[in-house]
C-alpha cells in the first residue's frame, strides 16, 4: 500500500487529536491489510530490518507492551523492552536524562507509556527517534483508539453515523479521550455515560453527548465501550463504592438490553469483572469483541510502525 501524502506528518504519533480523517482512514486501511496478513500467518520481516524499537514503559503494562513487541518483530525490527520502574524514577533520573541515554543508543522508534500527561510529547522534543504514545496519564492512548475503530469498522462496516457509548470512568481515561477524538472525527455519534464525578469538565465541548443514566445513554447504541474503573488513580472517593458503581454503571445483561439488539461490547482491558462489566457479558461471543480488539491491536501497531518507518527512510 502506498500513500500520496504523509500519514503522520510530524514523524510521531503522540495523539489522535489533530489527525485528519483521511489520515485516520489510511491508517485503518493499512492496519486492515496487516490483520489479513497476520491471519494468513505471513510476515514482512524486511520492512523494519535493522531498525531498533524500544518499548519504554514507565507504567506497568502487559498487553500493550506485548502487542508493540509482536508488531515490531513481525516487521523485522530489533525490539528492546525497557521497564523503568517507579523506584529508579524516584532515584532522580529525569525524563530528559532518559532521552539523552536513548539518543546515545540510536534508537529509531520509541514506544512510550508514562503516568504523566504530555510526557511522550516532552520526550519527542528531546530524542531523534519517532515517538509513539502508548498511553500518557489521562491524556491519550492513540493506538488503542485505532484498534477500537478498526474493530468497530470490521464488525459494523463503517464508523460514520454509528452511536458509540463510552461508559464509566471517563475522567481518568486516556482511552476515552483518544476514542472521542477519533470517532467524532470520523462522524460517529459519541456519548459518554458515567456519574458526574467521573465525567471531565466541559466534556460536551469535545463533541459528545453526556449522560449520567445508562438507560438513556445506551438507548439505540451500536457500540458499548466499557472503561476500566481506574481504581489506582482514584483519589478522594469519586465514587462511594464499587458495588454502588456496578449497580448503576456496570454492564450486565439487563443494561445491555437497552442498547440495539446487535450492539457490540468492547473493553480496552484489563477488566475488573463485577465492577464495570459482568463476566457473562465479557465472555459472551455473541456480543463481546474484546478478543478481536487484542488481535486488531497488533495490526494497528504494525500499521503505525510501518508509516513512521516510511518517514525514517525518507529522512535517511
Amino acid at each position, binding site marked *: 500500500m502506498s500513500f500520496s501524502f504523509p500519514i503522520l506528518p510530524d514523524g510521531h504519533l503522540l495523539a489522535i*487529536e489533530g489527525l485528519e480523517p483521511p489520515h485516520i482512514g489510511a491508517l485503518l486501511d493499512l492496519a486492515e491489510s496487516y490483520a489479513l496478513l497476520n491471519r494468513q500467518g505471513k510476515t514482512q520481516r524486511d520492512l523494519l530490518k535493522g531498525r531498533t524499537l524500544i518499548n519504554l514503559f514507565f507504567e506497568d503494562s502487559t498487553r500493550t507492551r506485548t502487542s508493540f513487541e509482536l508488531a515490531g518483530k513481525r516487521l523485522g525490527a530489533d525490539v528492546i523492552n525497557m521497564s523503568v520502574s517507579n523506584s529508579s524514577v524516584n532515584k532522580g533520573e*529525569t*525524563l*530528559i536524562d532518559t532521552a539523552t541515554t536513548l539518543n546515545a543508543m540510536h534508537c529509531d522508534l520509541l514506544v512510550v507509556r*508514562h503516568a*504523566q*500527561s*504530555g*510526557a511522550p*510529547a*516532552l520526550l519527542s522534543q528531546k530524542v531523534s527517534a519517532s515517538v509513539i504514545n502508548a498511553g*500518557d*496519564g*489521562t*491524556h*491519550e492512548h492513540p493506538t488503542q483508539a485505532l484498534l477500537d475503530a478498526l474493530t468497530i469498522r470490521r464488525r459494523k462496516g463503517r464508523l460514520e453515523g454509528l452511536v458509540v457509548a463510552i461508559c464509566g470512568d471517563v475522567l481518568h481515561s*486516556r482511552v476515552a*479521550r483518544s476514542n472521542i477524538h477519533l470517532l467524532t472525527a470520523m462522524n460517529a455519534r459519541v456519548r459518554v455515560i458515567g456519574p458526574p464525578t467521573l465525567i*471531565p*469538565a*466541559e*466534556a460536551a*465541548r*469535545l463533541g459528545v453527548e453526556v449522560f449520567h443514566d445508562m438507560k438513556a445513554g445506551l438507548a439505540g447504541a451500536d457500540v458499548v465501550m466499557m472503561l476500566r474503573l481506574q481504581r489506582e488513580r482514584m*483519589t478522594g472517593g469519586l465514587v462511594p463504592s464499587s458495588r454502588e458503581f456496578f449497580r448503576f454503571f456496570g454492564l450486565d445483561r439487563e443494561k445491555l438490553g437497552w442498547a440495539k439488539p446487535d450492539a457490540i461490547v468492547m473493553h480496552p482491558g484489563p477488566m475488573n469483572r463485577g465492577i464495570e462489566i459482568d463476566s457473562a457479558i465479557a465472555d459472551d461471543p455473541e456480543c463481546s469483541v474484546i478478543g478481536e480488539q487484542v488481535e486488531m491491536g497488533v495490526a494497528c501497531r504494525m500499521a503505525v510502525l510501518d508509516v513512521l518507518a516510511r518517514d525514517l527512510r525518507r529522512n535517511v
Partner: protein
Amino acid sequence: MTDIVFTGARLLDPATGLDAPGDLLVRNGLILDHGPNLSRPEGAEIVAAEGACLAPGLVDLRAAIGEPGAEHRETIASAAAAAVAGGITTLCALPDTEPALDDPALVQFVLRRGEATGSITLLPYAAATKHCEGKEIAEYGLLLEAGAVGFTDGRRAIGHARTMRLALSYARAFGRMVVQHPEEPGLAAGGAATEGELATRLGLPGIPAAAEAMLVQRDISLARLTGGHVHFAHVSTGAALDLIRAAKAEGLAVTCDTAPPYFDLNETAIGDYRTYAKLSPPLRPEADRLAVVAALQDGTIDAIASDHQPRDADDKRLPFAQAEAGGAGLATLLGVTLARVHGGDLPLLQALGLLTARPAALLGLPIGRLAKGATADLVLFELDRGWQVKAGSLPGKAQNSPFDGRALEGRVIGTWKSGRRVFAI
C-alpha cells in the same frame, strides 16, 4: 554627589497627573525640582532624555526570591539586577523562603542583603503564620519592628478560616495588610491547570476557577468581621473581581493586585504542555483575562505586581503536572503593562499609577512619585522602543518567563536609585 539634570524628558507622575515635557534636577539623591527649561547647575551631569519618558521607579508589590534557601534559582543580588533592568526600584519580597521569614532576625537579614545590592529598596514581607504553615500567627509586632512591610504566606493560601480571622484581627492593631494567595487549597489540591475544556483535552488535573472566588468571598466576610485589611494577590478571575468590587463599594478594607500574565495571556499559552506558562494561579480562559483588563480600567485592581517566581530548568523541564508553577516577571513588568497602553486598554498615566503611586499607597510609603524633595528613584524608558523577550538572555538568574518569544514595545533605558544610576541599557 554630582547634581543630575534630565533634559528634554516626558515627565510622568501618576500621583499628580503630570504628563508634560520638561527637565528634572536631582541633588543629593533627592528630586530638587522639575519643570520646563530648568537652569543647569555648574558641573551637573546632563542626561539628555530626548523625549523618553521619565517616571518614578516602579514599586513591585510581590516577588519571590530564592534567598534564603533556593539561591540556585535566584539570589537577592540577581533579583536586584533583573529588577533594575525592568525599572523597579522598590521590591517587596515574599517570605515563603527556606526558612520562612517568621523571625525578626531573618527579616533583618533580608533587609541587609537588600541594602548590600545598592540598587534597590528591598522590603521583606514577614510570614503571616509561623513557618508559613497556616496554623499559628507569627510575631507581627516584633517582625514590624525588624522592618517587615506586611504579612503573607506567599504562594500558600491561609486556608483555615480561624487562622485568617486571627491574622486579620491581629494585624489590624498594627495597621498593616494581610496578603492572601486567594485559592481554596482543598479544591485546588493536585490541580495543574484551570478546569475546563483545555485541561480536559490535555488530560491535566483541573483547578476550578471558583477556587479563587470562594476564598475571596470568605476573606471578605472575615474583613467585615474583623475590620482588618485583606489584600488579594494576583487576582485572575472575573468572579473574584466582582466580589472585590462589591466589597470596595461597601467600604471594606479590601484591596488587590494582579500580575501581567493574567491580563496578557490566557490558558491557551499552556498548549503543547508549555511548562513556562504553568503558573499559580493557573492561566484562565479569555473571558477572565478580559475581566482583569476591565478591573484595571475601573480601578478595582489597586496595583500590578510582577509575581516573580524564579524557577530553574530542573523545575520546568518535566511533564506538565510535575513541573513547578511560577514565572519570572521582573524584567517584563513594565513592557507587558505597556502592551495594554499600546493596545488602547489603559491610558499611560493610569497604567504607570498601577506600578508606582498606587502600590506605594498600599504600603503607606512616600515613594513612587516625582514630588520635589522625594527620593530620586527614577526610570527612563522609551515608550515605542521594540524588543523581544528571550528566555536565556533575561537579566537575573531566573529565565522562566511565560512571555518567552513575546514582542514588546516600551523598553527601560535607565534606572536611578536615590539619584545613582543603577541600570543603563
